[in-house]
């Protein structure tokens, strides 16, 4: 394969290890000099974006799309947190309230969290990290973005014509028989988007197997790759089950054939088994890639090898496998047999083992490191704390005797937001900041970024910690009105949500600002290891002018005791 832009890549840039020069001075002189050709400036036409097969451009397309969906899902959350400031119904009818939390769940899970890290950072980085020129199937990669957009826009259209009120879990027979809202249209949207997820997972798996550069053997791969590999296995094995389930709901709703509704001879519990067979592993689709990001950030900002590399790598696979065996813990009070409940309980508890391995090893990676508390590390350390709380409260829910009380209350809402927002979103934001210079060739304003990282952490805890208390007090989830004695805690939660909402607007603003005004980034502004830092920022369309040969393990930072302290 000939590389039309290969000549413009100077080999010296790909090996320059010096840290970024103090930014600011450089920008003044730059306009006179033509930028080297990179994947962004190679072609500005619409067509070159909409028909691109470059994994990096597809990653950017995903970045823009999921940001759009994140804003929609976030707006819904702001609306219902406002409503919950008082125990009575003030702003909305119950019907509208129910549509809002459904919209929040559907959009955030299917159109933001599941694609977030794998489709944006994964798309951008997997080929770069393994030393490949693109994904294994570039056209399939573009097709997956189109499927995602068709699904996403269908979902948005559904909301505009009236919305859906089943909750993102679509429990039958409410969804299949009783709801008068746009269940079918939403189901079609989720069904289509599922295929986008399957194709992305397939692409990542084949890329990791077939396109690794010479010398990049399995145990030299960055942990980001390991965790994406594990998540991709879940995407291709789990998502088809969701598609089948949606199809069955559609058959019952559309044709009146009894599958889930007992009035038609069906079994409503069957739906829950099928749904959670996908949707529990889907939690790991959201969190595993985030684990990978955290491993990269902690290694880079403590300039240290990841402690217990192989244990961390295998923990990802262990979580992916165990994740398929625990769906029944969503059904402890559904009427499932007590003994089935006990099996699911112990299997769910055992997920603590690989999770603990990760947390302990990340923390230990700081040992004898050289720590730079830049924005990505702030997000990563925040992640460890929040994920620890999220994971440990997961143990409460895996314990049958406690789950009977807290199931379907705000306790579980708090728990999964600690995992999904405290974990997955913190990881996504940390990763976005860490690789932003690589993706855009620009540095963001560090002060603003640190401030918003801290605001996100504070706002998050204020929003969701009171919900643990509310849940144990007994406040059921999806409640539009609630007993007045719980107002104080709800007001705290809503106040936190307003901080969190503002904190999210900061990165959106200064990251866009940095595209024009941010100082230019060198190839390796963090002085990090990894093949992605050995190509220019932004990279050229074909990533590597010369196929790299890997001779070292991942995170081969020089022994810090031997080098002087540069600061």
């Amino acid at each position, binding site marked *: 394969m000939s590389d039309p832009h290969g000549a413009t890549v100077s080999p010296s840039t790909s090996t320059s290890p010096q840290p970024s020069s103090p930014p600011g001075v450089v920008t003044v002189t730059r306009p006179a000099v033509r930028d080297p050709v990179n994947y962004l400036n190679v072609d500005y036409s619409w067509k070159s974006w909409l028909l691109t097969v470059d994994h990096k451009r597809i990653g950017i397309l995903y970045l823009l799309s999921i940001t759009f969906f994140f804003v929609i899902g976030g707006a819904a959350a702001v609306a219902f947190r406002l409503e919950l400031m008082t125990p009575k119904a003030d702003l909305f009818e*119950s019907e509208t309230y129910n549509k809002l939390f459904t919209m929040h769940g559907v959009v955030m899970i299917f159109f933001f969290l599941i694609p977030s890290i794998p489709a944006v950072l994964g798309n951008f980085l997997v080929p770069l990290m393994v030393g490949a020129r693109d994904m294994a199937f570039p056209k399939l990669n573009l097709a997956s973005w189109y499927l995602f957009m068709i699904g996403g826009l269908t979902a948005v259209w559904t909301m505009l014509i009236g919305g859906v009120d089943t909750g993102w879990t679509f429990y039958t027979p409410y969804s299949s028989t*009783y709801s008068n809202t746009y269940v079918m249209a939403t189901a079609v949207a989720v069904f289509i988007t599922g295929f986008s997820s399957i194709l992305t997972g397939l692409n990542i798996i084949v890329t990791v197997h077939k396109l690794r550069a010479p010398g990049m053997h399995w145990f030299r791969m960055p942990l980001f790759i390991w965790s994406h590999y594990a998540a991709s296995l879940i995407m291709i094995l789990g998502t088809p089950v969701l598609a089948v389930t949606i199809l069955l709901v559609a058959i019952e709703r559309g044709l009146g054939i009894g599958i889930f509704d007992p009035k038609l001879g069906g079994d*409503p519990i069957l739906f829950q088994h099928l749904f959670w067979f996908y949707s529990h592993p889907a939690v790991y689709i959201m969190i595993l890639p985030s684990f990978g990001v955290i491993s990269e950030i902690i290694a880079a900002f403590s300039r240290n090898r990841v402690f217990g590399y192989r244990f961390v790598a295998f923990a990802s696979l262990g979580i992916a496998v165990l994740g398929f065996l625990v769906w029944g813990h969503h059904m402890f009070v559904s009427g499932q047999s007590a003994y089935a409940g006990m099996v699911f309980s112990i299997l769910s508890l055992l997920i603590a083992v690989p999770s603990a391995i990760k947390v302990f090893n990340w*923390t230990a990676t700081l040992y*004898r490191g050289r*720590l730079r508390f830049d924005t990505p590390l702030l997000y990563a350390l925040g992640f460890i704390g929040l994920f620890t709380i999220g994971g440990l409260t997961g143990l409460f829910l895996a314990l049958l*005797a406690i789950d009977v009380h807290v199931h*379907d209350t705000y306790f579980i809402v708090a728990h999964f937001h600690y995992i999904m927002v405290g974990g997955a979103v913190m990881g996504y934001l940390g990763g976005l900041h860490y690789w932003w210079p690589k993706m855009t060739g620009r540095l963001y304003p560090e002060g603003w970024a640190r401030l918003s990282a801290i605001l996100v952490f504070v706002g998050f805890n204020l929003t969701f910690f009171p919900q643990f208390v509310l849940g144990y007090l007994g406040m059921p989830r999806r409640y539009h009105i609630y007993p007045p004695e719980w107002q104080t805690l709800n007001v705290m939660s809503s106040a936190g949500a307003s901080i969190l909402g503002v904190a999210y607007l900061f990165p959106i603003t200064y990251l866009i600002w940095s595209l024009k005004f941010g100082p230019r980034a060198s190839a390796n502004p963090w002085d990090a290891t990894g093949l992605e830092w050995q190509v220019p920022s932004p990279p050229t369309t074909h990533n590597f002018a010369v196929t790299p040969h890997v001779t070292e393990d991942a995170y081969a930072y020089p022994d810090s005791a031997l080098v002087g302290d540069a600061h």
Partner: protein
Amino acid sequence: MDNAEFQLFPDAASTVASRVDALFLFMTALTIFFTVAIAGAILYLGIRYRRGANVNRAQYSPPLWLELSWLLTPVPVVIFVFIWSSQLFLEMQRPPKDAMEIRVVAKQWMWKLQHPSGRREIDELHVPTGRAVRMTMISEDVIHSFYVPAFRIKQDVLPGRYTTTWFEADTPGTYHLFCAEYCGTNHSRMKGRVVVQTPSEYEEWLGGGRRDQSPVVAGAALYEQFRCGSCHAQTVTPLRAPPLEGIYGRSVKLANGATVTADDSYLRESITRPAAKVVAGFQPIMPVFEGQISEEGLSDLLAYLKSLGTADGVTADGSGGAAEGGSREGAKP
């Protein structure tokens, strides 16, 4: 409770509540311990190994025993809490044999409850202290969930199938009753209150109000109305349908070779969709009663069938209230 006072911990009003709380508090302590340990380690390492600090940063390869100890640390902890929780859960799942039975029919968006004596309530449940109460529940439409936080119990209520839960209240007072499974527009309004009374107050309450027919009497009337006896009575020759005396709780051999226990859900299905599970030796000739008898009516019929005796020769319903007025031949051993 009715007052709007700020709370951090829920009321406890059942015999299991404090035992669930003990496990919860143990887990909370465990969570605080690990969170503080991790956060402390991060803070300590973060300060000690900050850039510029003069410390030993020589490369360190973790020994295998360290990784293995991290791998194995959580295992005894989770096994310990698993055993603790599962024992408690099994107790919470198994009602005592002499529990008083309250029948619940849930629908969008109300709770309909009936005491053994026949007294009915809507969105309100009176129960005595010191007496085990079993709830046998079914839904008319979508899935609901019967939840009383002060009792620490919750059980989904399904359409087409009975589920049960039980509790023994120990503190008089008024407590929240919620629907915990999202069930449509007015989900958050599908709530009520549980009034826990002393046994004497409860008896007094039971005696007051409108006199409803006992479920057994109502069931016997339905049995007559639908002429069930024209096939099911033991006196019919040749036998066209399985006799129902002592059916409740018995093992039944089906035409397809399987064996099922004649519990509430099986008997209900055999009335509404008789062809689903045909008893061995009989033809599927019974008409379908799906949609012809209300959920309460089915419940009454089951109460009547139960009053005809159970497999082990005693009535499953240990309450005295159900006895009044019902035809209970063969009820006593």
